[in-house]
């Protein structure tokens, strides 16, 4: 059970994700008969005891009918009754129960239904072609072991009958794709596959009808079988990661509480908010649309929008951006933009533009196919013509050409890339890194520069107490006692750092934009910024200091000062050092103040640090590096990083990142440690090396087999054996990635040696 324990930080962080009952009702869908189904993403689920702990916690709720955890996609499906005997059920209890069991839960909208259908179709096709291949193989063995004329014909006819539906059903993926390619005047890997499969079937049928000795039905169908395995792996890997990304998606608020002119309050979906609506934003909620504060005072956490790490005070008349979290007081915001024109939407469109650039990346398999498929066709055509012209036997020439097509058929090539990528993705998943699609690994292996965002990436995005100056120990306890009453990040950091018992207070008020005020007898204690606590301007300029300062005062006299800095992400120093020793260039691109960024860069030993960048400037920086010949890995988390994540050659985001940040990133890492970055690079490089080896093996095999086929010596047995052997070799080679990984210490603090023999980072 120890594997599932959460630390105190995690539990505190969870308390900030509050979801209202209305929002849950919008996310859940009705099943009829008073039942609703709620799908939640629970990214921390990772083992058997997590499953039973969660399901037990949820089943204990009186209105929950069914709770099932899906470990693969890290989701919980919960069916609950809208009404119980006591009245309407309160579905917020579901999230509270999950939090209570020690996990974070996020709402999400399932989008992956369509993808599932393709996977099932592919699996069906694998099943059908496997069934057909096994049966035909059985009959073929009898033929090879010397069945005589009549029996052989019978067996061939049965084989033909089994092969025909399998061919139509399982082969349609290749036929469709090949036809599409040909229609547009291109060729791809599927053209030689379709050609070989149809030709070999047609020739076999013709042979059977003329009582021929050889038929190729077994080769035809088993070829399909192997290729479909590769195709299914490729699909499953992409879809699995995509489902996880969707599962992680903690979407920006789905709606907001709109205040009517007569004081009524109504929960309205986000799209229906119009300019001029007044929206109530409670403490802990995100601002749903860009607007202007018309009532209340508060501090906003803009970390996700601008990267600024310390909260910003807002009051009436101040503009606010969507996505910011309201920290200390409730606000009334008048919408100045529609949800689709708000900052969030603008960033998304910026991101889409950048994504377009990346879409031009060509996968290794496509590049190989472009070279390989014309060569195969040419070879088959040449052998057909040569045998026909020289030998004069056009039927035999046809058989030779088919043999060439089958033997060179990119069956091993079709497996070469997806098998390695699936194995590598599994390996990374075990280390807590999710790969979005296979080409991300290919791109990750090519990078030479790593750009980091600061807040939430190099640092945890939550402040940590570095120094407390107090005349008296008792004052520290008073400060902690006060801090316990607030959700302000600095207060929470102070409360967490409490080594000594907290002093209780009679009455505590939180003053938005200032801090906490408490009365204890006739003395007034204040905890907050210097201006608020001492009633005077701060004695020295702390605005540019890399540290945030909090002051405790009694009746306006300062008693204690506390200094905070954003805690570095664990493993950040090791990761940077490791990247540096592997000769990667590192730099920081951040939206935070330059002084804070410089401080972090100095601690970590990063030479280039750029602060106060807007999202667009981050994109420009990525593009500038790209144009000067560098391949950039962008690591970032905020919404403000999303466009840069999309623009970089490849990108990573922590699981705590904003939803949009995660969707823009190619890889997502779940654990807190930044070691994930060099680890992912090492695995990607190793898998790139394995893919190259696989291509070499598959092509080398063909080089050996093709002369046999051209010489007209390839019997069906040889063709089938050659094909299967090359596939098996390729798969076995891919599994070496696992073997190398188990030798090196997984998870813990990996040494550069973890990158293994052939993948030494150059």
């Amino acid at each position, binding site marked *: 059970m120890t594997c599932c324990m959460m630390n105190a930080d995690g539990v505190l962080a969870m308390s900030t994700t509050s979801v209202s009952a209305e929002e849950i009702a919008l996310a859940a869908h009705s099943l009829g008969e008073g039942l609703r189904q709620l799908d939640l993403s629970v990214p921390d689920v990772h083992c*058997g005891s997590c*499953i039973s702990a969660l399901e*037990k916690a949820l089943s204990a709720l009186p209105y929950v009918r*069914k*709770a099932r955890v899906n470990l693969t996609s890290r989701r919980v499906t919960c069916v609950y009754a809208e009404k119980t005997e006591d009245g309407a059920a309160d579905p917020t209890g579901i999230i509270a129960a999950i939090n209570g069991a020690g996990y974070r839960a996020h709402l999400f909208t399932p989008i992956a239904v369509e993808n599932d259908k393709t996977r*099932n179709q592919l699996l*069906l096709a694998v*099943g059908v072609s496997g*069934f057909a291949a096994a049966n035909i193989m059985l009959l073929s063995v009898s033929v090879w072991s010397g069945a005589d004329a009549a029996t052989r014909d019978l067996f061939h006819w*049965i084989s033909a009958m089994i092969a025909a539906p399998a061919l139509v059903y399982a082969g349609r993926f290749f036929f469709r794709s090949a036809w599409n390619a040909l229609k547009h005047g291109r060729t791809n890997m599927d053209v030689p596959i379709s050609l070989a499969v149809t030709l070999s079937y047609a020739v076999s049928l013709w042979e059977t009808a003329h009582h021929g000795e050889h038929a190729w039905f077994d080769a035809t169908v088993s070829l399909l079988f192997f290729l479909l395995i590769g195709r299914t792996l490729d699909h499953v890997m992409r879809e699995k990661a995509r489902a996880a990304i969707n599962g992680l998606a903690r979407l920006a608020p789905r709606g907001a509480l709109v205040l009517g002119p007569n004081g009524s309050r109504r929960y309205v979906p986000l799209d229906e908010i119009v300019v001029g609506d007044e929206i109530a934003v409670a403490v802990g909620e995100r601002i749903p649309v860009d607007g202007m504060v018309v009532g209340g005072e508060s501090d906003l956490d803009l970390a996700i929008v601008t990267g600024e790490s310390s909260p910003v005070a807002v009051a009436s008349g101040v503009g606010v951006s969507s996505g910011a979290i309201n920290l200390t007081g409730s606000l009334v915001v008048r919408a100045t933009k529609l949800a689709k024109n708000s900052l969030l939407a603008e960033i998304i469109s910026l991101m889409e533009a950048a994504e377009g650039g990346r879409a031009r990346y060509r996968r290794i398999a496509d590049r190989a196919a472009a070279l390989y498929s014309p060569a195969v066709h040419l070879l088959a055509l040449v052998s057909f013509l040569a045998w026909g012209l020289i030998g004069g036997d056009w039927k035999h020439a046809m058989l030779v050409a088919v043999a060439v097509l089958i033997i060179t058929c990119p069956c091993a090539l079709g497996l070469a890339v997806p098998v390695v990528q699936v194995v590598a993705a599994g390996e990374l998943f075990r280390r807590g890194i999710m790969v979005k699609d296979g080409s991300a690994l290919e791109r990750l292996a090519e990078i030479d520069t790593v750009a980091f965002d600061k807040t939430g990436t190099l640092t945890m995005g939550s402040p940590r107490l570095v120094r407390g100056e107090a005349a008296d120990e008792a004052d520290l306890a008073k400060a902690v006692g006060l801090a316990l009453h607030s959700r302000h990040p600095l207060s929470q950091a102070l409360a967490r750092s409490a080594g000594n018992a907290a002093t209780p207070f009679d009455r505590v008020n939180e003053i938005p934009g200032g801090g906490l005020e408490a009365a204890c007898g006739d003395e007034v204690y204040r905890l907050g910024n210097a201006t608020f606590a001492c009633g005077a301007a701060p004695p020295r300029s702390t605005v540019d200091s890399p540290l945030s300062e909090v002051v405790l005062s009694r009746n306006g006299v300062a008693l204690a000062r506390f200094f905070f800095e954003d805690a570095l992400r664990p493993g950040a120093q090791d990761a940077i050092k490791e990247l540096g020793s592997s000769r990667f260039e590192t730099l920081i691109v951040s939206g935070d103040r330059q002084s804070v960024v410089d401080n972090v860069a100095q601690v970590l030993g990063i030479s280039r640090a750029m602060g106060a960048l807007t999202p667009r400037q981050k994109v420009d920086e990525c593009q500038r590096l790209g144009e000067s010949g560098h391949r950039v890995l962008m690591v970032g988390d905020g919404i403000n990083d999303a466009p840069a994540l999309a623009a970089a050659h490849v990108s990573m985001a922590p699981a705590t990142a904003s939803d949009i940040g995660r969707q823009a990133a190619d890889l997502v890492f779940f654990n807190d440690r930044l070691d994930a970055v060099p680890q992912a690079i090492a695995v990607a490089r190793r898998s790139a090396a394995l893919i190259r080896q696989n291509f070499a093996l598959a092509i080398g095999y063909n080089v050996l087999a093709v002369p046999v086929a051209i010489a007209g010596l390839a019997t069906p047995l040889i063709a089938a054996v050659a094909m299967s052997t090359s596939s098996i070799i390729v798969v076995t080679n891919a599994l070496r990635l696992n073997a190398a990984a188990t030798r090196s210490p997984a998870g813990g603090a990996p040494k550069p040696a973890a990158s293994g023999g052939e993948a030494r980072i150059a």
Partner: protein
Amino acid sequence: MNMLIYLIPIALFMGGVGLAAFLWSLGNGQYDDLQGAAWRVLADDESDPPKS
């Protein structure tokens, strides 16, 4: 050779039954959570039967 007349259809039929079982399990969602299924085998207390 006469037995082939029985054996081949029997072999095909049994293979077909296996295929049908696979298709059924696929449609039934049994491949949706392979990792979870692997862990559930080890859980000794299946969660309570669904309440009415």
